[in-house]
């Protein structure tokens, strides 16, 4: 179990790093898929099977759309022109360093509770129940938000015809 954890962790973080550092935008997106699948594998290790499947369906599956837009909007004949690297390396490094330090402090100072309870056998029902009772308002808000995004996309794509 511990061995699997380290293996998956290395693959996930390694591909995340490769995604950021790769100069080819298409390959960056592919490494992102590997990262998402690695996260899904982590969920499996935590016995959250439903969440793992959602992770693959929503994130890894939707990357294809992401790539399509990425290619359509940015790709030039020469890959170097497509994926321009910023010159502000020093500033970016400083911001990243500060973020890492803040995160590290929070991780190290937090008191992590360890649960002795056995993992639930059936996860889908519990998630559904929580979503439709305790968290019904956030759930509906997200639904409305997505609907607005969808309508916005349609309006941008089709343009509203002026009716006088």
């Amino acid at each position: 179990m511990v061995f699997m954890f380290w293996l998956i962790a290395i693959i996930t973080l390694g591909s995340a790093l490769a995604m950021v550092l790769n100069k080819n935008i298409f390959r960056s997106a592919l490494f992102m898929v590997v990262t998402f699948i690695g996260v899904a594998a982590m969920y499996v290790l935590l016995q959250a099977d439903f969440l793992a499947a959602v992770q693959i369906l929503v994130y890894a599956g939707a990357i294809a759309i992401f790539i399509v837009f990425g290619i359509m909007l940015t790709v030039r004949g020469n890959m170097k022109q497509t994926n321009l690297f910023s010159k502000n390396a020093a500033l970016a490094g400083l911001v990243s360093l500060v973020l890492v330090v803040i995160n590290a402090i929070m991780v190290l100072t937090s008191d992590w509770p360890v649960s002795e309870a056995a993992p639930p056998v059936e996860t889908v029902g519990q998630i559904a129940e929580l979503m439709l009772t305790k968290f019904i308002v956030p759930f509906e808000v997200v639904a409305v938000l997505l609907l607005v995004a969808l309508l916005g996309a349609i309006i941008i794509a089709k343009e509203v015809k002026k009716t006088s």
Partner: protein
Amino acid sequence: MQIFIDLANLIRGWITGMGISEAAAEIVMTAVGAVAVIVFILIHVILLILAERRVSAFFQLRKGPNRLGPIGIGQVLADVVKTLGKEDIIPAGADKFVFKIASTTFFATALLAYAVIPFGEGMIIQDLNIGIFYFIAIGSTATMSVLMAGWSSNNKYAMIGGMRGVAQMISYEIPMVFSLLGVVMLAGSLKMSDIVEAQKNMWFIVPQFIAFLIYYIAATAEINRAPFDLPEGEQELVAGFFIEYSGIRWALFAMAEYANMVAVSAIATTLFLGGWNAPFGLTFIPPFVWFMLKLYVMIFTFLWVRWTFPRLRVDHLMHFGWKFLIPASLANILVTGIGIYIYRAITG
């Protein structure tokens, strides 16, 4: 057909007899199951290539392959030898790494889907709690491989094919998931064995006939078969996203397409046609045989549709998917919910 289960138990007995831990034995058994699935797929690819040719010839009033051996069996062997002997050509302008792994990942996703297909009572590699949802999640990743193949080939036909593939597969995935939801609502579980068990008295094709039709149409689009074969339409795109592939890499794509066809047929059999349940109390025929019979009926309908209908136009495809199939599948969920409520109110 208890023989497969007995065989599995025998192998399990051998492995644990060698003094390996329970977890390690489970890993070995999964590997054995994977090999069995690969053999299953290979046999069916060979059968389906021949079946497709014979069926298409039958529909077009031709004779089809009939020179090599009886009903052209030798033709398939000749094809296999030809494919294996071909040179593996990689275009100079291709993104070589992505080009090479695209065919493998496409076949791998097709293979992974078989983990949750119940071929008979107890004949399932992993009877996951989220069974059918796992199948949907794995199926959604096939889009990636299509796009990878289309983009890395550095060919405009391949690129257009890949883009069409993404648009089509993402669009038709939604009605497919919604149509399966009706069955899940009736069975009250995502687990494959529970869904099959729930159909003991009545197959779900009866109360969920609309869902079955939606699933069938969406599945045809998901596996890129005519009339939804736009990503590889011969007349416009030559071969679409795998135009630049040759030899064994091309064969992997072809095999994966047939494997996907068998997989969606198996899911249709499991969710709508009662899985390995025997109809009319004909239980003297073993469950595995029933499953295969229903599977072959489903596969035949896929062949039938392919050689009967003309290809759709791209914009018609999108209109049909978004403006008809998705509303219809949503309405099906609503009606199913109301139906379940009324049924409970009557029976108490």
